[in-house]
């Protein structure tokens, strides 16, 4: 890291001390032109990824999946089955890589932990009164600590959108800092819930806020509101992590979540990562997909590439 980024980093770390400084900084970020951002995302979506590039992209995408179930109906049996699938997505093909992580509610963490121990698959738990985040801070932090204690090594928190939209940036910042502390060694993913932030300017500001407060990852969505991950939203977030690393030297990961269902969708995201932030982020440590049905489509396309024929959906496990 250069002397400039070191001093920039220490200047930026001061911002969280004052509401005014935070506001001045966040509102001083360059704006996002909606039409231009959407056009750029659409252009990247027209890249044609074939043959060897497609095979490479599919395996990478599988390794990046945060295989997720976040339902009221989740049971120990259900999440154990999902965890088994995470470890061996394609029982017929040992060369198929395992996914990045399994993502569940805190109460389900112990059952998943049993299955994942020693496999290299991470265990992510949502926390902080997911998905709304509308609970007292103490409860959100207790939620986080419980998840970590039960064995989660990644925490997916939600930001306080109410506070953000009301302009109380310091409150949002302080909550992230507190959750980071409560997470201990676990990696902290900060869910911005971009569908509720509505504008790309807000997405950029929330991204910076989450990074300034110490988030290890920024994540688009809970999957519980109508608008989840989109390509333009992810583009704006990728630009933010790129600019943040240039300013501070610290690399932050990105996780689009919700609505990514097909291999075609996943490849569009990988192209966007490749051409916006580059190869440094093309790794499960720095880019993840929050998804559930995506995995089977990736497996189906993977089998098609190796065998030349499509197998019916019954050849892939439903968990």
């Amino acid at each position, binding site marked *: 890291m250069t002397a400039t980024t070191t001093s920039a980093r220490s200047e930026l770390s001061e911002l969280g001390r004052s509401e005014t400084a935070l506001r001045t900084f966040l509102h001083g970020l360059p704006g996002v032109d909606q*039409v231009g*951002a959407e056009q750029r995302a659409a252009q990247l979506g027209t890249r044609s990824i074939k043959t060897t590039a497609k095979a490479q992209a599919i395996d990478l995408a599988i390794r990046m999946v945060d295989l997720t179930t976040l339902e009221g109906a989740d049971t120990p049996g259900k999440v154990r089955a999902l965890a088994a699938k995470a470890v061996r997505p394609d029982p017929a093909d040992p060369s198929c890589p395992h996914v990045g992580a399994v993502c569940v509610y805190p109460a389900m963490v112990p059952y998943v932990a049993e299955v994942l121990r020693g496999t290299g698959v991470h265990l992510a738990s949502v926390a902080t009164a997911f998905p709304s985040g509308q609970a007292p801070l103490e409860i959100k932090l207790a939620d986080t600590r419980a998840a970590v204690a039960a064995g989660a090594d990644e925490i997916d928190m939600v930001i306080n959108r109410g506070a953000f939209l009301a302009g109380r940036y310091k409150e949002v910042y302080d909550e992230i800092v507190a959750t980071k502390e409560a997470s201990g060694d676990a990696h902290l993913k900060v869910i911005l819930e971009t569908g509720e932030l509505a504008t790309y300017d807000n997405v950029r500001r929330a991204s910076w806020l989450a990074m300034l407060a110490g988030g290890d990852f920024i994540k688009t969505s809970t999957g519980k509101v109508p608008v989840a991950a989109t390509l333009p939203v992810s583009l704006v977030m990728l*630009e933010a992590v790129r600019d943040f690393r240039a300013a501070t030297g610290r690399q932050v990961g990105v996780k689009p979540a919700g609505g990514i269902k097909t291999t075609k969708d996943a490849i569009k995201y990988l192209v966007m990562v490749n051409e916006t932030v580059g190869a440094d982020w093309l790794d499960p440590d720095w880019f993840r997909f929050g998804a559930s049905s995506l995995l089977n489509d990736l497996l189906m396309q993977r089998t098609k590439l190796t065998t030349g024929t499509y197998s019916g959906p019954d050849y892939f496990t439903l968990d």
Partner: protein
Amino acid sequence: MFEYAPAPESRSVVDLKPSYGLFIDGAFVDPADGGSFKSINPASEEVLAEVAEAGAQDVERAVRAARKAYEKVWGPMPGRDRAKYLFRIARLIQERSRELAVLESLDNGKPIKESRDVDLPLVAAHFFYYAGWADKLEHAGFGVDPKPVGVAAQVIPWNFPLLMLAWKIAPALAAGNTVVLKPAETTPLTALLFAEICQQAELPAGVVNIITGAGDTGRALVEHPGVDKVAFTGSTEVGRAIARSVAGTRKKLTLELGGKAANIVFDDAPIDQAVEGIVNGIFFNQGHVCCAGSRLLVQENVADRVLESLKRRMAQLRVGDPLDKNTDIGAINSAAQLERIRELSDAGSAEGAERWSPPCELPDRGFWFAPTIFTGVTQAHRIAREEIFGPVLSVLTFRTPAEAVEKANNTPYGLSAGIWTDKGSRILWMADRLRAGVVWANTFNKFDPTSPFGGYKESGYGREGGRHGLEGYLNV
């Protein structure tokens, strides 16, 4: 690393003949004196087809065929019936768009993603748009019963061969004129395929005539006394010569000539999108665009930041095979154009501007030029004043809005300009003061058939596109 495997569009959709005649009076005919020339693929220098060279006698035949069709068929035909033919042509263009796009990329060198996603959709849209006007001319604002002009001589450039054909032919036919069109000598093939589409649409013979050839053919056409209207898109130098030759005749004239557009970036601009706009402004179609944003005027207090982002973005541009679906920048259209780009770029270096290109491997065969920017450019440099018509951007800085306007207008051209700012009031203030026919705000190189396009000063006169585009083809 994530390397994209080659993703070539198939050439097999195009059925090229070894040689093409002239399209006169509804049929392909041999030229009177049997002359011909070759059209090559600029990405490989392979010969694509042999094309007839029209001489004075052929021009005479074509103009006579157009006159006859104008007087007997097309002129008297009700607008609603002309519209049917235009709608039919538009639909055929859509149906055959893949074939046309591949041929356009082969003959011109532009990337297939542009011919497929920009050129062809716009070509069809122009025909659809003007088809709609054919039976509504009395509502166009040019009087109660506006009449066509007659026979139009149309000479088009090589940068957007099929799109420029559409800009010329669609309004002319909608208004009731017949045409003789000469495509550029380096890119005649899609116009000849369009002639086949006219046959397929059963367009009456002589309404559209396509004659191929170089400068001499074009001169014979525009100087022909049987022509009522001349429409030209191309260089300012040729435009001047045409204006001189048409002076003192009854011919109506529209000219769409060169440009040296300013793309102006203020310090409050959405930087990431502005960088996309700068890239699109100068590297779209290899910079072979008359309205290209070839002068970047960036506010000095954000210049370093914008240039850093721009260079990072330029390093992502993929230069190479025009038929690869992932190619961003294709081949320079001809050896002569490549020579001109090299000559002006060398002048830029010699005059002291700092030259930069991203590392990029260029193919051995064909005509190629890496995307290039010059920084430290002043108004006095040749690269800030002359149209390069290639992927070369000159970067200048300014301090205040007034200075931006002054520098932007300080050119003999006046075709287009771009403004990048988050402040709506500044966009309007600037647009009022910029002497350019088209002003884009927070975007660049956006085209639509409903929007008039054309220049100020030495960028020409007359408008193409929109309701305004009808005026040049109506006797008003």
